[in-house]
């Protein structure tokens, strides 16, 4: 799809005027000029997300309601134009990057809370609201929205659902899909369907969950009904530093075996620990190899006891130092450091490849050891964080972005890491999604039949393959 423009010389240089073509004119009719971006600079500003991938759309529409989305999707369908929904654009796997031009549907202007229903402990929201904004609103009523991904300050609910986002607390509370009660979805045909508790009229099996984690390829979410979780009475955050990963892993096992379900168990390796201290002024001891961050929640009567059990596990496994964060300020500080991990990478190397395999919990120790070995093999620094309670790891492979050779090595290291995860009974992605990044690994984890089944459902829901084409599956189309 070509953008037609004329070149107009001016005194200062050359200015490229874009004369809106038919498609753009129709879109302007739908959303209004102030909600449509087609200047090449604007397109460049939407040509990226949190990953290393880039790709320019042909036009960006910022709809204000579902009806506009429906009309835009119909226009896209009629013209065989690719279309891609975008939340905050913080995907780490390239999910929000358009590979085939087309229309990017930005949901930043659809972010209202439509209904807070405390009787039924649920809320209805538009997809563009940020996770944190929702949490702030719910706090007043003593509720939370349980999924709390590291990027919750900015990532949107629509994005959370499309990626089935996890979060620090998903060990106890589950992923986003466990908290989605119903959806309003605009299908590729322009038809609007309702699922779950938003659908009051139909006999159906569970149709909601399959849209969770579908990365914008099954349909475009325009409304979500979410489950609310009561705010817990008390939270205790504990930290311990160990001299080796083995001890940290054993401490984790012990904690879990005491029938405690902590809300979070985070392991940070030595590279991360040092960087957090250096760039984030994190108050972490610098002499350890593995930092373990544990959070327990519960009723006031039981929390001291729970925390004592955790501290005992720390001590029993040779923790160099251990402490309890008692007040909100201390607790926030520890968590801020953890949530900022993605951002510090920039200081460790101009390029970083962050993966997110997950393995069964009993295989974490082995996985981290193997990953460290791979780092040594390729001569690359690998930062490792791990959600120890649920087996999701984040090996961050650092490399020099100016060196093609280093990048190739990083990719090879990344490949090996994912293969090991699969061999240990795990998955190539615990929370970042397949996007563009892990397309080539899908055949390693799924059989031909499995992939064939996924394709068949995709083709039922989106026969002309216009929705976020090029993500999750490698499918041939005319786009």
């Amino acid at each position, binding site marked *: 799809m070509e953008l037609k423009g004329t070149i107009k010389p001016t005194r200062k240089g050359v200015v490229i005027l874009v004369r809106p073509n038919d498609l753009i004119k129709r879109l302007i009719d739908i959303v209004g000029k102030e909600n449509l971006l087609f200047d090449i600079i604007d397109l460049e500003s939407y040509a990226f997300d949190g990953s290393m991938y880039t790709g320019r759309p042909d036009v960006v529409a910022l709809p204000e309601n579902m009806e506009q989305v429906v009309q835009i999707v119909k226009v896209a369908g009629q013209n065989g134009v690719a279309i891609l929904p975008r939340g905050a654009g913080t995907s780490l796997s390239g999910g929000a990057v358009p590979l085939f031009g087309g229309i990017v549907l930005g949901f930043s202007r659809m972010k209202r809370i439509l209904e807070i229903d405390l009787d039924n402990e649920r809320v209805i929201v538009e997809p563009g609201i940020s996770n944190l904004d929702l949490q702030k609103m719910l706090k007043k009523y003593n509720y939370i929205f349980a999924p709390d991904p590291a990027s919750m300050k900015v990532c949107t609910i629509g994005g959370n659902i499309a990626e089935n986002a996890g979060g620090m607390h998903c060990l106890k509370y589950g992923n986003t899909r466990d908290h989605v009660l119903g959806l309003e979805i605009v299908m590729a045909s322009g038809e609007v369907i309702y699922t779950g508790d938003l659908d009051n009229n*139909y006999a159906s099996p569970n149709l909601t*969950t399959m849209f969770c984690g579908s990365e914008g390829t099954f349909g475009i979410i325009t409304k979500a009904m979410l489950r609310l979780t009561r705010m817990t009475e008390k939270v205790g955050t504990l930290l311990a530093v160990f001299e080796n990963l083995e001890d940290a892993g054993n401490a984790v096992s012990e904690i879990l075996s005491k029938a405690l379900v902590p809300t979070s168990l985070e392991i940070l390796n030595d590279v991360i620990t040092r960087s957090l201290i250096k760039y984030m002024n994190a108050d972490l001891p610098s002499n350890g190899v593995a930092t373990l961050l544990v959070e327990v929640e519960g009723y006031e009567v039981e929390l001291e006891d729970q925390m004592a059990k955790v501290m005992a596990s720390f001590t029993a496994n040779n923790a160099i130092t251990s402490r309890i964060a008692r007040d909100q300020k201390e607790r926030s500080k520890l968590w801020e450091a953890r949530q900022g991990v993605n951002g510090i990478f920039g200081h460790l190397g101009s390029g970083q490849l962050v993966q997110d395999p997950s393995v069964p919990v009993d295989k974490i120790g082995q996985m981290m050891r193997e990953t460290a070995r791979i780092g040594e093999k390729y001569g690359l620094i690998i930062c490792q964080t791990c959600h120890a309670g649920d087996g*999701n790891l984040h090996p961050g492979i650092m490399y020099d972005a100016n060196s093609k050779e280093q990048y190739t090595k990083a990719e090879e290291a990344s490949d090996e890491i994912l293969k090991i995860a699969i061999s240990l*009974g795990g998955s190539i992605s615990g929370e970042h999604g397949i996007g563009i990044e892990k397309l080539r690994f899908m055949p390693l984890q799924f059989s031909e039949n*499995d992939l064939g*089944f996924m394709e068949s459902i995709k083709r039922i829901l989106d026969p002309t393959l216009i929705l976020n084409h090029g993500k999750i599956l490698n499918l041939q189309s005319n786009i």
Partner: protein
Amino acid sequence: MDVLVASRFSKMYYPSSSEEVRDIVNIGRENDFNIIPMGNGTLVCDYLGEMVKPSIGLCLRKLNRVMEVNPRNLTVTVEAGITLFKLQSVLRNYNLWLPVLSTNESERTIGGMLAENARNYEKYGHKNIGDYVIGLEFITAAGLIIKTGGKTVKNVAGYDFTHLLNGSLGTLAIATKVTLKLNPQPEVRKTFLYNIPDFVYGNNVISTISKMSLAAVSYHMFQLTDSFELNYFSNAKAVAAISIEGSKSVVENHLVKLSTVAGQYRIGQAVINSCEYWDNYSTQYEHIDMKYKLAGSVNKKYLPQIIKLITELVHYPIGVFFDIGIGYFMIYFSKESDLKNAEVKISQVSVKYQMHISTTRLEIHPLYQSIKIKMDNMNCLFSNNTIFSLENCLIKE
């Protein structure tokens, strides 16, 4: 397995592996049979419509092994034909449990419960069995063995079809293996009972309690009639029951809170272990003549109104049961005329109070239709299912 059930099919099969299931499906499809999957067949007849083409029954009761228990990962992988009872007894050895309670646990299979979206007694606190599935293997009408999800709690690789069969009543595919996320066994599970004079009063008590910070997993009420004998109180009209669970210190503390409420409302109280309580409930439930049953759910905002309505309506019920936590109710009548009468009265307000009623025929979801037509183009999987039949039931154009 009921002889009566088996007699309704041309042939019954009892495969003992996923591959055998697949082979039977292939035979069925190639011969244009109607294939009806079932666990132990306890509920299959409830959904059997008119037999249009020859039907074969696919009973998965022999597919009942525990494939893997991973205590540290808090997961278990089983074959779909295992009964809930057997699964729970295996898990007990590891101090784990699947927090799902249902009627007839010794007969009901995991696959069957998923297909029916069986209601969890403690649904309020523990959701439904379908919410615990993180990995699934199923056989499609085309005879393919498909895997979705996996063994890890966090898994977003590819699409998530682990819940697609929940509530599909065996019409989309046949589940053969299921990986479930588990909880550790709670230290203590207790049910606190209140002797309430009527449901309206009981609901007020429960409203007070639900505002408290409580480790409650279920709030319900039921009426005591001749056939429904749970002898916790003498001369009781109805009972409100709150099930709580957690660590010893928490449960003790919360039982005291609940006791205070009994004093506030001047009603009798009793405490019983939850497993005993639910066992009793389950046994009683099974003895009720369920022929004339009206069940439904209501938007919790309108519970007080519905409770009042049902209290006024229902003069000669065998039993009435409310799950206040989820807005669900069940009424058992002794006569059909009573049932019809109640149905009419409740239907009048069903839109206003945002209700689902079990006896109302629902149209089939258009998305389900699209998927069913493509996945099972020969319509060989349970084609005469009373809820999802594309031939017999309502289809929205």
